[in-house]
Structures are given as C-alpha cells and as structure tokens.
C-alpha cells in the first residue's frame, strides 16, 4: 500500500512537471496552468492527515532547480498552499464543482503572489498580469485534474474517500 502510494505520487508529479515545462508556443505560454501546484492541492485534499508536509517542500525544491530560481521559493509557496488546503479540507470537499473551481483560482493566485513577492524581495520582479490568466486556466482545468487523478488512484490504491 505504502509503496503503491509513493509510486503513484511520484508518477503524478512527474506527469505534472512534464505538462508544466512542456515547451509551447509563445501565445500559449501564459495559459499553461500551474500543474504541479494543482497536484499538490489534490493530494492534500485526498490524503488529509496522512499528507506529509515534506512533500511540497521537496517538490518545490525540484521546481526551483528546474526554473533556476532561488532555492526554497517554490517550496515555501507550495508549503503554504498545502497548509491552506489542509486547514480547510472539510469545506473544500463539501463545496460544489463551481465553488471549488473558484477557490482553486484564488489559491493559485495566492500561490503566484507568494512567488512574486519573494522575487520582489530579491529584486528581479517584473510585474505583469499573466498571473490572472494562469489562475483562470488552472481553475478551469481543476475538475479534470481531480477526476483523472481520482479515477486513477481509486483503481490503483482502492482508496476509500470519505
């Protein structure tokens, strides 16, 4: 069970990273959702108490290395993102699809705000409005993420969702 969980966690993040860094045309770049953040949110929702906070930290560090950003930037943002989700798991699960999408949009916006704030402190930030576009596309893609991951996991782990 534990091995299977680790395996599927690894697989889901690998897929998310591939999707996030996949080269696309310039027009589409700003529309690429924050796949990795979405997958973190999903696992925080599903695993709840069993969710290890070291996971977002580690994934975040990998993102930092890939992006060439300062070590800890994405890790901190992902950590806080999963914290917010873990604090509100019950409300989140009860929410309808539309409401969930709205909340995801706000979460991703907050996530990007943390990233931008850290960059601002370092002094490299260039303000732009693409954060809203990314949040929007992330919110739109969320139901599919949760359905695909949910389906795959249930089959693979035979998880009981309460």
């Amino acid at each position, binding site marked *: 069970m534990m091995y299977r969980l680790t395996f599927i966690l690894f697989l889901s993040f690998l897929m998310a990273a591939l999707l996030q860094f996949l080269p696309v045309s310039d027009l589409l770049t700003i529309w690429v959702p924050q796949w990795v953040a979405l997958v973190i949110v999903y696992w925080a929702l599903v695993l709840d108490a069993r969710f290890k906070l070291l996971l977002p930290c580690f994934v975040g560090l990998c993102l930092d290395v890939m992006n060439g950003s300062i*070590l800890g930037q994405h890790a901190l943002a992902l950590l806080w993102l999963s914290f917010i989700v873990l604090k509100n798991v019950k409300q989140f699960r009860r929410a309808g699809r539309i409401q969930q999408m709205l909340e995801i949009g706000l979460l991703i916006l907050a996530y990007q705000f943390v990233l931008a704030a850290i960059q601002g402190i370092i002094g490299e930030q260039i303000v732009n409005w693409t954060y809203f576009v990314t949040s929007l596309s992330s919110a739109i893609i969320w139901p599919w993420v949760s359905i695909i991951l949910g389906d795959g996991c249930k089959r693979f782990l035979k998880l009981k969702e309460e």
Partner: protein
Amino acid sequence: MLFRHATGLWLRVFCLSIIMIGLMVADHHYRYVNNVRKVLSVALIPLQYTLDAPVEVINWLKVSAAAQHRLATENLQLKQQLLLMQVSLQQLINMQQENGQLRALLKSSSRINGQFQEAKALAMNLEGPSAEVVLNKGSRGGVLIGQVVIDVSGVMGQIIDLTPFTSRLMLISDPRSGVPVEDDRSRFQAIVVGAGTNRPLSLIHAAETADVKVGDLLITSGLGARYPEGYPVGRVLRITKMQGEPFMSIEVEPSALLEQSRRVLIVSHYRDDDSEKMLYKTATKPMIKGPAL
C-alpha cells in the same frame, strides 16, 4: 505522535517555513547550498531531456514528411550558400592574418581566436522573470562557467550553471545580465542590460550628448574580458529623452534570436593570455546583484 494533528500542523508549517526562508537567504546571499542544487539538478537531467524529446520528434517528422524534391532544392540552395561562404572565408583568413600582423606591430593582444563548440538548447517552458535556457552540453562536454554563447546572428548570453550533462545559459535579456558594448558607427561605449524575457534590452548610462542613433549596431567591446570583442549584440530600436534625467532611455533589439535559437555555439577560447583562465575561476559566483560584466 508528539502533537495532535490540529495543533501540530501550525508548528510543522512554521518550522518548515523557517527552514525554507533560511535556505533562500543562504542561497541568495552566501551560495552555501550549491550542493543541494547540484544534487537535485543532476537528478532532474532525465526530465529535461524527456521534455526535449517531443520537439525533436516533431522536427524529425517535419523533415521526413517533407517532399523529396523540396529537400533537393533546399540542398541545392545550401550548397550555393556554402560556396559563397567559402569564398568570403578565404578573404577573411587573409584579412585575419593581416590584422594579426598589424596588431603585433601595435603590440596589442590578438583578438578573437575563436574555438567553438556546438550545443543544442533543450526546449523547456520556464517561468519567472529570469531568462534562461538549458543546453545539452555540460562539464563532461568541457563547458565552463562564464563561457559565452552565441548563435548565427549574435551574442546570446553566458553559462552560469553546470551539471555533468547540461548547462544553464543566462540570456542577455535576463535582468541580471550586462554586456559591455560599443556603437559600431561612433565607437561610443556603454553597457546593455536585460529587462526580462521577450522585452527589448536597454542601453544604460548614455548621456544626452552621447552619439547614438536609431538603427545603430551595437557590438561587444571586449571590456570586462567576459564577452569576446566584435560580436553583434543588437540594434538601437528607440531613444527616449526624458526631461530632467541625466541619461537617455535607449531600447535595443537583440540580434540573436534569443528565445527561438535551438542550435547555438559555445565560445571556447578567444584569447591566448591567462587572464581568461583566471576569469573562469573567479566566475563561479554568477548570480551577483546588478549587471554582471
């Protein structure tokens, strides 16, 4: 369990946040954690090559799907181009010799004696304001930190990070990048800094009286001994004079196709003196604040 879940969560998040902030401070100010970065980046190499695969496949499909006669015409054109190039190269070799002799007479150091190494940019969609590209050659391929990268039309940037099989190229459009340049027409010298991905570069510290015109070609001046002399950096796109400001704001369009170039050249050795080797040794702290010259 020491803590119950509800109270423990706050504490754990708090502790991890402190650790992460500490990590950021260590990374930004002291570069203590380079080893962490190195280990992780080596682990992530397969991912970077995997990401490049679909683009390669598409390119391969394009070539293999292209009609035979189109390839034949392209081949013919390329051969003609090659012929022209070779003819002009003959002249160039002659001129280079002459130039070397003249410079020897003037007792100045010989310039550009370029050895190039071909590399490929791995296609990847990176976020954030920093403009970086990952190349498919690393320390195993003989790449050094601080080496300059060019493409067919101009300067692209410099190598700032290495793994055994990949290297990270900071483009000249990166806000951290600075290139010493001179105006090809008036020999006016200044520095070109980046302003972020897909934005024009800017020529800084040009006084109102400086002799710079729209359309001027800017080439590397060789000052600072990082960028070799005489490579095109960009053309002046727009000049704005601001009231009360001591300097003009000058936008520069890069010559190199910064974001699109897939095939690039790493300049290996461009000078015979030891200053260059010294430079590469001291260049291990690439992410300094302000323009890196």
